């Protein structure tokens, strides 16, 4: 039931916020804040490590004709991500407290529905249900960008929607393909994740189906050739929208790769892994390079996201325990640090009415507290030891090194670039001399200080003591590694070509990448 509540509270809270808008102008934001606080508290109960593979589950029939079930279940990985969602959701509500002055009710309605969709994505174990939530979080996000965004919002919103929708529809076709392949082989037509794991299929089929999933997640992540929606969407979205985009929506892509692509299609993913890792490294370097050449602060932070999410993709395709642990930490920490940077940009924009780096400079004198915060998150972003991102990136690089040395070294170059652009932000915006005469600027208010303070606590804690996250996610990752390794060993129910069987039976014992 607890999972139902986690989704129902934002849904109901969103509706309430919309309806209460007419009653009192301040009501929507309080409703939204209370709903997310409630969700966070309920969600914390999920963080207890448990014995079975799934911590809590709910599983009832939904559309019998297709074998679709309303199956929600979470394990440690989902629990961590859901907690991140609730936390960043609260922050997103708090940071749009004053920024949104038009149609607040509808704004918070959309915001809460995006969050509900994200929680659904992180907990759905029926592939149809997963797709359902996957699409459901898109529509409110479209409105967040299209209605409350900045100058070029319509273009950005439509671009975002088209990219993700094309990916999503291809994934739908792949989901249905998998459903039919499994149904043909076993006679059981189901969308259930656990049942579909280890479905035997011919390698070309597996490759096509995997590509269908992969494209959807790669667009979301975003991976290198399909990333171009991201800078626009991030730049034009309102602050809360950027926080949710960078902090949560991108993570659904990583989660999908981790949860679906590799466990469902281990063989095909193994074949694809070298390309995947190459694309990831290209994303790391390309994102960093482009970040460096931006003058729009928000766009700059958006490009750093591409670079950082490249690390996650690299780790996932390396598919070993260290790298995956690193990926999980990186997912969480990137959500927090980039979210914080977007919030700071939002605060600057509220005060200066510009995001142009060339018009900033010398802000430290007037806003030392904000400058300090910005410096801290910039350092987190460049991977300073002691802060969460360092743990993630370090583990990823260690994990990837045995798999592919050259790529690891190239990826490490991304870290160097990260320190350049991170310090560049601070130097350009806060140090130096003011390039424009401006009115007195207020430093962080109490509300803003609390928001950033909470994020600082989180990132420092994850940097110094990430063990709880490891404890929660290790069993999950171990199990995934097991599934993906042993999948080819499960007896193939339909006989494939002899060559394929022989090849599939090969690497059972060894590492996932052993046969290369």
């Amino acid at each position: 039931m607890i999972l139902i509540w986690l989704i129902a509270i934002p849904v109901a809270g969103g509706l309430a916020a919309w309806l209460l808008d007419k009653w009192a102008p301040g009501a929507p934001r309080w409703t939204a804040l209370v709903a997310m606080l409630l969700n966070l508290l309920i969600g914390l109960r999920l963080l207890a490590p448990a014995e079975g593979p799934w911590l809590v589950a709910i599983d009832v029939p939904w559309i019998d004709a297709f074998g679709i079930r309303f199956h929600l279940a979470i394990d440690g990985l989902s629990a961590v991500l859901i907690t991140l969602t609730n936390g960043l959701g609260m922050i997103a509500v708090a940071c749009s407290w004053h920024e949104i002055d038009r149609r607040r009710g509808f704004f918070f309605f959309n915001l809460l529905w995006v969050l509900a969709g994200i929680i659904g994505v992180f907990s759905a174990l029926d592939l149809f249900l997963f797709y359902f939530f996957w699409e459901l979080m898109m529509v409110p996000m479209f409105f967040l960008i299209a209605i409350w965004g900045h100058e070029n919002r319509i273009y950005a919103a439509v671009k975002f929607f088209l990219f993700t929708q094309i990916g999503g529809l291809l994934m739908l076709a792949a989901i249905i393909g998998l459903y039919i392949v499994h149904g043909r082989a076993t006679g059981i037509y189901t969308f259930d994740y656990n049942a579909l794991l280890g479905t035997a299929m011919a390698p070309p089929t597996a490759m096509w189906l995997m590509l269908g999933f992969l494209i959807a997640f790669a667009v979301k992540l975003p991976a290198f050739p399909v990333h171009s929606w991201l800078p626009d969407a991030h730049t034009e979205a309102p602050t809360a929208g950027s926080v949710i985009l960078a902090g949560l929506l991108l993570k659904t892509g990583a989660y999908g790769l981790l949860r679906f692509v590799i466990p469902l299609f281990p063989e095909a993913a193994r074949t694809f892994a070298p390309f995947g890792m190459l694309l990831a490294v290209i994303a790391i370097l390309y994102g960093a390079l482009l970040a460096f050449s931006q003058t729009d602060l928000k766009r700059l932070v958006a490009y750093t996201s591409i670079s950082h999410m490249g690390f996650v993709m690299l780790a996932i395709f390396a598919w070993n325990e260290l790298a995956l642990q690193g990926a999980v930490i990186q997912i969480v920490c990137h959500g927090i640090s980039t979210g914080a940077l977007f919030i700071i940009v939002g605060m600057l924009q509220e005060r200066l009415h510009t995001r142009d780096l060339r018009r900033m400079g010398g802000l430290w004198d007037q806003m030392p507290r904000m400058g300090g915060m910005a410096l801290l998150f910039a350092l987190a972003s460049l991977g300073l030891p002691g802060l969460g991102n360092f743990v993630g990136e370090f583990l990823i690089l260690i994990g990837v090194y045995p798999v592919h040395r050259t790529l690891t070294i190239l990826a490490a170059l991304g870290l160097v670039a990260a320190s350049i652009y991170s310090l560049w932000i601070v130097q350009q915006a806060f140090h130096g001399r003011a390039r424009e005469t401006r009115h007195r600027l207020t430093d962080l208010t109490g509300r803003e200080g609390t928001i950033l303070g909470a994020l600082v606590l989180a990132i420092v804690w994850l940097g110094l003591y990430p063990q709880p996250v490891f404890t929660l996610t290790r069993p999950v990752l171990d199990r995934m590694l097991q599934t993906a390794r042993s999948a080819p060993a499960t007896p193939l129910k339909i006989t494939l070509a002899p060559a394929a069987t022989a090849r599939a039976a090969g690497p059972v014992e060894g590492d996932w990448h052993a046969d290369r």
Partner: protein
Amino acid sequence: MQTADFTALTPLLLLAAAIAAVMLQIALKRSHILTIVLTLAGLIAAMLGVLAVGDMPARQVTPLVTMDRLAFFFIGLILTATAATALLGCRYWEHAVGQCEEYYLLLLVAALGACVLAAAHHFAAFFIGLEILSISLFTLMAFARRRMASVEAGLKYLVLAGISSAFLLFGIALIYADVGSLAFPIWTARLQAAGETVSPLLLIGMGMTVIGVGFKLALVPFHMWTADIYQGAPAPTTAFVATVSKSAMVALLLRLFAPVDFTAEPALFWTLAILAFASMIVGNILALRQDSVKRILAYSSIAHMGYLLVAFLSGGPAAIAATVFYITAYTITVLGAFGVVTVLSRTDADADSMSDFQGLFFSHPWLAGVFMAMLLSLAGIPLTAGFIGKFYAITAGAQGGIWWLIITLVLTSAASLFYYLRIVVAMFSPPLENKTQPPAAGISYSGGLVLTVMTVLLIWVGSAPGPLIDLIGRITQ
């Protein structure tokens, strides 16, 4: 004819009685309200008739029609759509110059034609049903006769329908010359038996029949003027054409070709597959270039018939069920979409250009919400009936292994988002300063009722399609 025959025909008889009653009422005393009440009473009586006898075992009444579950389902769908159109038309025609009672009469006659078409089992019944439907439609389209666009739409549809009827007729005459019977089952049996060696007469006949059906369903390349007709016709008529005449033709398509095994008939399969492919591509591309909402919906209907054909062509057990589900979901959605257009329109000018919809969200949030739901359903976003329909179509297609059509469906429907979103974005843009919003008087109760019902149905079918799928499963067994 025995009593059981009359029992089976109950819905059609009630509908015919309603037509006679409305006709008499108009002759005796003109009253808009009275006509509407009579029309709705007749439609509701016929619907109750469907509910009462719908579960009967299939019965062939004379050689002409078969009243089976499929027929009853389509008759129910047609009656519902007609009732929705009549309710939507109330406010639209209220301020019309001149008399408008005949509109409802013609609506009922057209519905009767569509019902006969849905139950047709024999060529003669099919032809009579089709022509009753078409001839009423010409008049329904030209009904706003002060508006030249409306009359032109009627005339264009007349020329188009005449040519397509002639093709159908000639094709059927050739088939008849070859087969020696006008009953549908004998044709399909003959076609099955012939396998790959079809006689040229039968082949040409089938080809001309496909052309005729293609015209009626507005498949590419028989789609010219579709957009003009949709745009020119009064909004309630457009809703009617897009739903009733399409679903009647789909019923016919099912009767004619559903028993055919497409793997044994590559020529027929490829003809229909290419029509589906072209409709998806051309329909969506042309829709991208439109600025008129009605034209966008017209081209999108072409594309949707292409999607429907994908489900239909998949063969296999799910094909028929998927097709029926698709047309049902489509009917609900299109009634809602044109319902919004109708509610925003007046007899003298329909809400059509993008600017008519600009800022709708702020002036009429509820209407905008309904329209958005309908557009998202057309685009196939979850929680709407359109999504389940598309999902069903893709599943059926994947079972049939026609992946190239599925990929086309997926990519074109992703592209279609672009023009649906344009309308959505227009609704959320700030309203134009110097523009008076179309309905100053607000939404009529009847229009509001239809839109509410359609929205509820849309979300119900979209979130819990189980009952409808079961029902369709029982029908198509």
